[in-house]
């Protein structure tokens, strides 16, 4: 797989301004902008980093550049939601998607371990899709709990939060320039653990029509809060009530308006 990917990246480097991927240097693995074929011996696929956020960062810095990205299924799902919100430009991006292994799919309880590049102007997928991972057992356990117990469960979990904002910082679809989590109107600053349930409910509400289940938030949480349980449940509700699956389809519009112009209210703006 890695050799096939390196070969395709080498090919695309001839026409692109660089390809974003993971590089293993002597000091370790991290995201990198590859420019030359010689560097590709250092291209690797693990561990997980928010590659879609690097695409956004570099496209914004270089408004005319055309980049490629080596991306997993979840990276592509994130790019889908970002594209809908004008955070990445599909016309200037070449996606070299690759399928996750069965072990990776299982570890992430991933429902969709292969990139879906339908609708992307320039994209390809390398590898054979594997079956979905088994669902997260914590979600089913939680669903069995009575209401009061659910409240107590989250209360106990969020007591551990150290307000690092890591779940937001690493989230590929959290990109607002001014964040409600930092607005003293909504969340009293400097309180540790942050006020329950406001801090985490705001984040959860904002994730409702955009969480692509990449699991980066849970991986980076120093307090080991099972955030994907919360977001999985919200994803289920949004799918059941509104028929929307974030990240699944570049063309489908989210159920919540993206701009004020789309809002079903009379704004009467001069």
């Amino acid at each position, binding site marked *: 797989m890695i050799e096939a990917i390196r070969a395709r990246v080498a090919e695309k480097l001839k026409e692109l*301004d*660089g390809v*974003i991927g993971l*590089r293993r240097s002597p000091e370790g693995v*991290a995201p990198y902008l590859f420019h030359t074929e010689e560097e590709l011996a250092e291209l690797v696929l693990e561990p997980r980093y928010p590659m879609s956020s690097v695409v956004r*960062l570099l496209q914004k*810095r270089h408004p005319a550049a055309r980049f490629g990205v080596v991306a997993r299924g979840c990276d592509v799902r994130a790019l889908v939601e970002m594209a809908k919100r004008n955070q990445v430009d599909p016309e200037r991006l070449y996606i070299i998607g690759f399928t996750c292994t069965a072990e990776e799919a299982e570890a992430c309880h991933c429902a969709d371990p292969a990139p879906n590049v339908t609708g992307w102007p320039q994209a390809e997928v390398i590898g054979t899709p594997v079956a979905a991972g088994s669902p997260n057992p914590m979600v089913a356990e939680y669903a069995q709990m009575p209401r009061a117990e659910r409240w107590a469960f989250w209360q106990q979990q969020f007591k551990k939060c150290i307000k*690092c904002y890591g779940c937001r910082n690493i989230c590929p679809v959290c990109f607002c320039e001014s964040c409600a989590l930092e607005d003293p109107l909504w969340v009293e600053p400097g309180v540790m653990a942050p006020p329950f349930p406001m801090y985490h409910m705001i984040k959860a509400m904002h994730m409702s029509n955009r969480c692509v289940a990449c699991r980066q938030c849970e991986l*980076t949480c120093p307090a080991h809060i099972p955030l994907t349980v919360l977001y999985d449940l919200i994803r289920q509700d949004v799918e059941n009530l509104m028929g929307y699956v974030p990240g699944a389809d570049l063309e489908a519009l989210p159920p919540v308006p993206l701009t004020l112009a789309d809002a079903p209210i009379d704004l009467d703006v001069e």
Partner: protein
Amino acid sequence: MDYKNVRTTCIYCGCGCTLNVQVADGEVVGILPCPEHPISRGSLCIKGWNAAEFATHPDRLRVPLIRREGGFEEASWEEALALVAERLGAIRDDSGPDSIGFFTSAKCTNEENYLLQKLARAVIKTNNVDHCARL
């Protein structure tokens, strides 16, 4: 059009979390945690996530300063270091090596701490060397 991550160690507290400093075209553009690191394990606290911002703060000192009548004045490195060398030498000659003290730093690197205590012990010849470990 360059982008890379430089792996380094956080400056806030003794945990020693690894930071991936995102550098684009010679400019720090963000920090990512490091999943491979056995202590931080892909996590950071709020200070680690924001450990780059102060470095580009407009208050950064950029030029050596010498106090003259009426306040600080900018000086060249040569002038500033010559003044320090001359004054330290004169005070040592007048009042002995133990009339000079050195504060090394819990925020500076191992190599820098080594060099400053070497300067104190081998050049000035005093053991008046300490830092704020106790504070």
